[in-house]
């Protein structure tokens, strides 16, 4: 479209404004539509009997006694379901020889983790269904649980899956340049071993599903608290054999996901199959303890990372060797999740060689899969940790070491050693701004004073200069990684006869604020008010095409589809307006929602008038179809690469091991922004989850494979006193890969913050000979690291619950903006 520069009364652009969210009116008044709210006539409730053993053969399952319980309508074991007991799918076979064992909706031969589904009861209400579970008889023959990844790979280890009898799922290699040559040229080779512990996503809304037979021909509607209604529909058709056009999947209000609802779950299959069999709606809502036990986990890597460097700290090569815990089964992208990190271990640094190996390992634990950042936080943690460790070894400032190695802003676009082209960035600018906000030099001076004074409370400063790849994903890249689907996104934009605008998007929000942001984008493109735009999403009947929301992709892929569709609407409207104005389309300009003929001031048609003309179709130009709408499907050509500099100051009480964040500064560069308020919120939430990994959260199994952090009593999701205000700012280096110049922000805070915090704590106590401390950095671990020579704090007492309180934080300046 064309725009008149400096038009006297041009409407203010909505993109870039901190528009208050359109979503919030419902959410703050309780007028919500969570899946668990849904009540349908004749609806039944499902409860799932779960294995109390990590590893056992199932000798017998007998549900008959459960059928006698009050209110019970049906009960099934896996065998009872017969050929309806189909498997959940993994869509990412990362190597040709990857082991992909069956993952049936109900386990039949063995149970493979505590929480593995064994049988279900269907009853009149949720209390009756839960009560009847205890009447189901199951005989288990216990097997030794496989819990430790290294032990799992040893010859003779018990196998989680009898076929093929090995716990190795795959070994995946990736490299560029000659690492051995780089090593030979290096002055030193610096190796570190880090543990990136297992986390539980813990979205506040537990998962919930309702399946209802909705027609005479086997049609079924599934409401699910999912991030991916479109993908669930495809996978449901593939697994159950129900024709895809008879399946409708609806994701109503979804209360957070963070990757845990980027999944195709057994309970979705069970609800659909059983509702279809019984001809009645079936609902299942997980308890929080089920959520902790069976909704997929994240992270869980043993990381070996090695830098070949010169004495000046110039990186020549990087070698990474990972063991990645798959858990007991492969969920949709379990094996691929750690590999998304393969491209992020080199971070923002230039080097000659990269050598990456990852081995996926089966254990008798909850399956892992994508959790906010998905592979990229793990990679960023390792590279940013080792950069601080290397700086200490070389006795240079950690920011100085980074500057010696990072890509300078003049060098963009830059093809990194990971073979991907980084679009834009300015690491110098973000770092300079962060140092200024942080008072880096002042805090370094204070740190020195405290060291000299032998203050029991020591100050540590941690650095993280991260980049990430956003916008999953160019379909050709996914193809090269053997992912079985594409990464495109779809949008439809309609101007209705009355002038109201509908945007249909294939992205599927679960708290981000897409309705607001997409309204802003469409409003600017069409020259209308954002309030005149409504956004339709999350229902395969009304938004039939989409690849959903994850991987910081919604704006950079889905948002661009909205832009492109809106431009097509304007293109069509231009033809109709020209016809109405009896002018040449090329002589029209489109400003603030109105077509005008250049040089002929009175001669105008608004887009609303054009829409009505397109509706009546009484007088359309030759070859132009009625209605004013257009579609676009965008397949991104490449990723975008946001980046940022995060600085964290932590006070560590050396007598108690307690760590308190004193100041957290982050300057992110995510290109242009559509809504700075939403962006800010995404950063805050991301920081909280990354800081939580560093200080608070860890999924712990005991020796028998019981999850001892199986509720919010034992798994420490931080509360308000556990976190500080964040001092945030942005630099703006627009992306060159999309018309809005945006990058992606959903995961940035999580990816960057974990190493910043751990680096700060280690920086505070390195003077006592500490090189590393295991996450989560509990006071006990920090104390042990200080007081037990050579210790990294050790394992957490597996039999215990969380015995430490949260580290209360002092507030900082109160956050920017």
């Amino acid at each position: 479209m064309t725009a008149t520069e400096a038009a006297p009364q041009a409407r203010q652009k909505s993109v870039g404004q901190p528009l208050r969210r359109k979503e919030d009116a419902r959410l703050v008044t309780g007028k919500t539509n969570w899946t668990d709210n849904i009540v349908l006539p004749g609806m039944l409730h499902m409860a799932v009997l779960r294995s109390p053993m990590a590893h056992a053969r199932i000798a017998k399952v007998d549900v008959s006694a459960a059928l006698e319980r009050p209110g019970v309508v049906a009960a099934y074991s896996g065998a009872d379901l017969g050929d309806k007991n189909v498997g959940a799918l993994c869509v990412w076979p990362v190597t040709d020889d990857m082991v992909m064992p069956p993952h049936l909706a109900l386990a039949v031969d063995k149970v493979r983790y505590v929480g593995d589904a064994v049988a279900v009861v269907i009853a009149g209400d949720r209390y009756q269904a839960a009560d009847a579970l205890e009447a189901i008889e199951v005989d288990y023959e216990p097997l030794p649980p496989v819990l430790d990844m290294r032990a799992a790979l040893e010859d003779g280890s018990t196998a989680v899956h009898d076929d093929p009898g090995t716990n190795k799922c795959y070994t995946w290699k990736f490299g560029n340049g000659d690492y051995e040559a780089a090593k030979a040229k290096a002055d030193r080779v610096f190796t570190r071993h880090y543990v990136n512990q297992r986390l539980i996503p813990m979205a506040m809304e537990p998962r919930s599903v309702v399946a209802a037979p909705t027609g005479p021909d086997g049609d079924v509607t599934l409401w699910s608290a999912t991030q991916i209604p479109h993908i669930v529909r495809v996978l449901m058709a593939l697994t159950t054999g129900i024709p895809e056009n008879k399946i409708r999947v609806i994701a109503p209000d979804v209360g957070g996901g963070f990757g845990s609802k980027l999944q195709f779950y057994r309970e979705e299959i069970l609800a659909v199959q059983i509702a279809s069999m019984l001809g009645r709606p079936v609902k299942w809502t997980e308890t929080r303890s089920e959520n902790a036990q069976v909704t997929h986990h994240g992270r869980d890597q043993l990381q070996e990372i090695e830098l070949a460097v010169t004495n000046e700290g110039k990186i020549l090569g990087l070698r990474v060797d990972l063991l990645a815990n798959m858990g007991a089964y492969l969920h949709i992208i379990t094996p691929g999740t750690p590999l998304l990190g393969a491209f992020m271990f080199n971070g923002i640094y230039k080097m000659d060689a990269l050598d990456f190996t990852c081995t996926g390992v089966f254990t008798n634990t909850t399956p892992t899969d994508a959790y906010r950042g998905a592979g990229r936080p793990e990679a960023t943690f390792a590279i940013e940790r080792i950069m601080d460790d290397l700086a200490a070894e070389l006795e240079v400032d950690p920011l100085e070491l980074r500057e010696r190695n990072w890509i300078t802003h003049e060098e963009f676009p830059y093809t990194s050693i990971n073979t991907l082209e980084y679009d834009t960035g300015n690491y110098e600018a973000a770092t300079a701004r962060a140092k200024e906000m942080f008072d880096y030099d002042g805090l370094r001076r204070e740190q020195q004073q405290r060291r000299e004074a032998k203050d029991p409370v020591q100050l540590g400063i941690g650095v993280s200069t991260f980049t990430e790849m956003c916008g999953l994903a160019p379909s050709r890249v996914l193809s090269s990684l053997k992912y079985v689907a594409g990464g495109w996104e779809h949008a439809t934009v309609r101007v209705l006869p009355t002038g109201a605008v509908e945007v249909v998007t294939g992205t599927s929000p679960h708290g981000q604020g897409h309705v607001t942001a997409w309204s802003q984008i469409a409003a600017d493109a069409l020259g209308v008010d954002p309030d005149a735009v409504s956004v339709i999403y999350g229902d395969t009947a009304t938004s039939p095409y989409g690849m959903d929301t994850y991987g910081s992709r919604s704006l950079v892929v889905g948002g661009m589809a909205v832009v492109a569709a809106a431009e097509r609407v304007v293109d069509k409207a231009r033809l109709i307006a020209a016809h109405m104005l009896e002018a040449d389309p090329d002589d029209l300009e489109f400003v603030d929602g109105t077509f005008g003929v250049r040089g002929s001031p009175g001669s105008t048609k608004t887009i609303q008038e054009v829409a009505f003309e397109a509706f009546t179709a009484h007088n359309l130009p030759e070859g132009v179809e009625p209605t004013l709408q257009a579609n676009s499907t965008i397949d991104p050509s490449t990723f975008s690469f946001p980046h940022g500099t995060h600085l964290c100051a932590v006070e560590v009480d050396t007598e108690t091991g307690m760590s308190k964040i004193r100041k957290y500064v982050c300057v992110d560069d995510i290109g242009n922004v559509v809504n700075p308020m939403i962006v800010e919120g995404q950063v805050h939430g991301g920081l909280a989850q990354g800081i939580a990994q560093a200080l608070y959260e860890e999924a712990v199994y005991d020796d028998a494979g019981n999850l001892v952090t199986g509720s919010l009593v034992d798994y420490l999701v931080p509360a308000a006193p556990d976190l500080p205000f964040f001092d945030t700012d942005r630099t703006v280096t627009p992306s060159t890969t999309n018309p809005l110049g945006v990058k992606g922000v959903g995961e940035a805070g999580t990816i960057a913050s974990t190493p910043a915090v751990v680096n700060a704590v280690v920086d505070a106590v390195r003077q006592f000979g500490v090189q590393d401390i295991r996450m989560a950095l509990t006071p006990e671990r920090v104390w042990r690291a200080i007081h037990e020579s050579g210790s990294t704090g050790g394992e957490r007492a597996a039999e215990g619950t969380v015995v430490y309180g949260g580290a209360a934080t002092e507030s900082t300046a109160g956050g920017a903006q």
Partner: protein
Amino acid sequence: MQIQVTVDGQQRVDEVEPRLLLVHYLRERVGKVGTPVGCDTSNCGACTVQVDGQTVKSCSLLAVQADGTEVTTIEGLANGEWHQVQTSFKECHGLQCGYCTPGMIMAAIDLLKENPDPSETQIRDGLEGNLCRCTGYHNIVKSVQHAAAQGGAR
């Protein structure tokens, strides 16, 4: 057992099982689905309501214990116009997915009733029983500060 409860101004008489949790009564019998359930252990506070003006996690009370009380949920809060705390949460982007929001707003109202001009630390401590996974609490604390500045104790 028969209970008599006033929910958001509406008087009700219901037969309930003695074991029925108040939150399930509100959601499934009264239809007050604006109050969600987030955990089984009374840690998350998503289900927070007021019972006779006192803030209560409705998963930790039986429906029969609410007999003879007045219950106010998030749905009964707006009286013609929004409560200041609701307005402030929207204004300050104190919510994202919104699942914790009903409980967080109820807890914040109680906090401001006790202390109309709380410090940052007092706000954080006052909201300790309510978990949010989206916001990192930054804008929740800002929302409560905003509400306090607007005289939000009401």
